């Protein structure tokens, strides 16, 4: 939840509240001095709400598209492959595509089927389990399971900022959470007494200890009194702030960053409603490339994934409802891009999943697994058993440049 929009709403300075929460979390995992993760940087962006893959990368070469999506397919975007074209809102990414630093996977999804619930879908995406319902015994996320498998990680190796902690990085491996604009200012005596009263309650003890130590370590604007809401200048300001924060850490010793971009649940008036989330996505990619600089960007792979795609046909309110197969965006200097990957199932009604959704032809987890294998050399058995239980990775798509 983005509190700035809310605060501005109450103080009467907000733009539209339809511009819903943008970012929830940035999660960062750093290597210690011995650099067990090497030089590669992995950035995972969870697109919450069900990103419409068919609108992101459009099969414009198929005459059926205009029939399914009379409103959505109307404004033409730049051509990518002669068959697929890019959403016009993302035209700014074209140079990356041409440089081979942008690619897509089409018709991919988690193993989640049929219920089309955001809440279960996101749980499965983040938990990375092979079940099609959330497995309550696998409570930690796949990134965390990956961290646990890296030897030599010490406490505070990973930390996160944001309004909630992201399940992708939750679990027994050491993770801490922080939002950059809240600061705690305490006298030494109060600190000692707080330590004392939290001693027997692990939940409070750990949260409070991290709150105190992290604030001291970070060079952040002080809060006056209690809470000083950041004044949002423009709708992309917060996206920029968090991207910059992540980039700064990634230039340093952070190797993995994960965060969410919200606002993809476009049930109505999608061409209007998806403009801001698309702008944010484009901005994150471009700004990250810019802020990281060529040397680090060359070692970086960004994966943007979502809980499910949306219906192939527009609904009655110029939007789309929850579907199944979707798309994934990849970017970075480490990527062998300029491709739309994945087997394309086609749009014939008989080729659709339940005659309604794009048929998934790959498991979104397999792409993440190949990325992790390529970047950090993870053992295939480890990936298919403990990080993504039950996954069959299939053949190597050769993601890295």
């Amino acid at each position, binding site marked *: 939840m983005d509190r700035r929009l809310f*605060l501005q709403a*109450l103080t*009467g300075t907000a733009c539209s*509240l339809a511009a819903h929460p943008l970012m929830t979390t940035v999660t960062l995992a750093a290597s210690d001095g011995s650099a067990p993760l090497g030089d590669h940087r992995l950035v995972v962006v969870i697109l919450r709400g069900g990103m419409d893959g068919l609108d992101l990368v459009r099969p414009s070469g198929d005459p059926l598209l205009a029939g399914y999506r009379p409103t959505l397919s109307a404004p033409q975007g730049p051509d990518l492959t002669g068959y697929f074209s890019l959403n016009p809102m993302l035209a700014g990414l074209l140079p990356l595509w041409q440089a081979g630093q942008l690619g897509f996977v089409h018709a991919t999804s988690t193993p989640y089927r049929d219920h089309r619930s955001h809440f279960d879908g996101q749980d499965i995406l983040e938990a990375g389990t092979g079940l099609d319902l959330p497995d309550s015994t696998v409570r930690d996320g796949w990134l965390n399971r990956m961290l646990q498998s890296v030897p030599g990680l010490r406490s505070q190796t990973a930390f996160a900022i944001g309004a909630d902690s992201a399940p992708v990085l939750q679990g027994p491996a050491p993770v801490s959470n922080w939002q950059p604009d809240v600061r*705690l200012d305490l006298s030494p005596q109060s600190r000692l*007494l707080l330590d004392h009263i939290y001693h*027997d309650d692990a939940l*409070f003890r750990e949260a409070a200890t991290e709150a105190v130590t992290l604030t001291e370590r970070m060079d952040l604007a002080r809060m006056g*009194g209690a809470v000083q809401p950041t004044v949002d200048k423009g709708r992309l300001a917060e996206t920029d702030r968090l991207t910059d924060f992540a980039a700064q850490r990634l230039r340093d010793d952070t190797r993995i960053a994960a965060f969410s971009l919200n606002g993809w649940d476009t049930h109505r008036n999608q061409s209007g409603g998806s403009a801001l989330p698309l702008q944010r996505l484009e901005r994150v990619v471009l700004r990250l490339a810019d802020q990281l600089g060529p040397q680090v960007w060359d070692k970086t792979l960004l994966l943007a994934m979502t809980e499910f795609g949306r219906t192939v046909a527009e609904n009655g309110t110029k939007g789309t409802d929850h579907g199944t197969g979707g798309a994934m965006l990849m970017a970075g200097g480490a990527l062998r891009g300029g491709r739309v990957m994945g087997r394309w199932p086609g749009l014939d009604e008989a080729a659709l999943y339940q005659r309604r959704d794009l048929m998934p032809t790959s498991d979104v987890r397999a792409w993440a697994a190949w990325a992790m294998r390529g970047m950090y050399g993870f053992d295939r058995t480890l990936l298919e058993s403990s990080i993504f239980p039950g996954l069959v990775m299939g053949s190597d798509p050769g993601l890295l440049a």
Partner: protein
Amino acid sequence: MTQDKTTAAFRFGYGLPLPDQAPAEPASMLAALRGPDVMAATYPGPRLADLNDTLARADTLLQTWRRAEAAEARVARQDYRQAIAQLEGVTLLAAKTTIARALDAPDGFRERLVQFWADHFTTVARARRDSPLPATLVEEAIRPHLTDRFADMLKAVIQHPAMLRYLDQSRSIGPRSRIGKRQNKGLNENLARELLELHTVGSGYAQDDVTQMAELLTGLTVGKSGTTFDARRAEPGPETILGTTYAGDKLEPVLKALDDLAEHPATAAHLARKLAVHFVADQPNPDLVQALTDAWRSSGGDLLAVAESLLTHPAAWSRIQEKARQPFDFTVAALRALGLDGADVMRMADDVFRQLILQPMAAMGQPWQRAPGPDGWPEAAEVWITPEAMAVRITWAMEMPQQLVTPLPDPAALMTRSLGSHLGERLAWAVPRSESAREAVGLVLASPEFNRR
């Protein structure tokens, strides 16, 4: 079974000290719940009927602003902003009202139930004009039905404009209906899906049920003076949901389907567990869940019978504080501990109220009436007790009391009256060792026993 006052206040109310003559054991708590809703009369809440004129005016002005020539548009823009300010003022007043009621209510359990159901039926304003709508839904569709059948509350909520607008029902049109064919418009299944997944059965339905539910709901929409059923938008033909067929393009079959969903056995199990999780523990006692499920099923979803089953179950009186107080609960409990009452909050200047109460609540992770989605706020303690949120809670505890109360209350007295039998040895040891009253009060309000329930 032992029922102590501290547990009653923490688990089923907004904390200690309890207001005068507040009931603290099951029979009298239930009697109070059956009795008159005193707080609704003391601090009246917003009614949509009183806002319809302003909403209509705002909509007309917005049209004029967009379409008219420059001079006329300028005037319209000014008037539009005034109308929006008026509507947002209602929202702010409603927030104060909710806190005032929670502070003064002799029956805190009623206020807690209102919050539970308001969260179960979460709505969020999707445009500035809609800002007071969530509060009107709570006032009109939830509060009056706390002791009725669940079906009554469900029908009131699903027909309320706040819900119809939030989950897009007001835009959904049967593709083969008269308007659908003429304007080439169609379904939006947002409300239909959440009605099944979140509001009622929770599982055991398929995509077909969602689509059929969406078709059945067509016709239900929001007009100028509120909710209407417009047969010209209704998808013709019967719809089958969870094996039952509903025929007729009018409101009655919709209401019949809502009745059936409310009484479905899966709804009983879903909501029994949700109540136990919310009030007692994130991993609730299975016996308690079963007792609630049984009470729900045997009474046909009579919410009073369910409340009685909750209050009289031994597991509901466990002394262990397993849950975290959510930021709203924390804030109310802190104001109560500091000795503020409802009148103090109602008197508070708007900017002070925002700065001392609403903004910190948002920073603790719970912006007022802006839950992240239709599934409402999460329950797990770990979600609320994060480093970030603790930093805000601790800072609030240390800094805000002195801005709310001068002079600060005696810390030792505040500690005993606000914690009762939950007061632990570590806190009792630490409070007298603080360097100042400010920090001592801060320790009490930041303590685990105050932040849990």
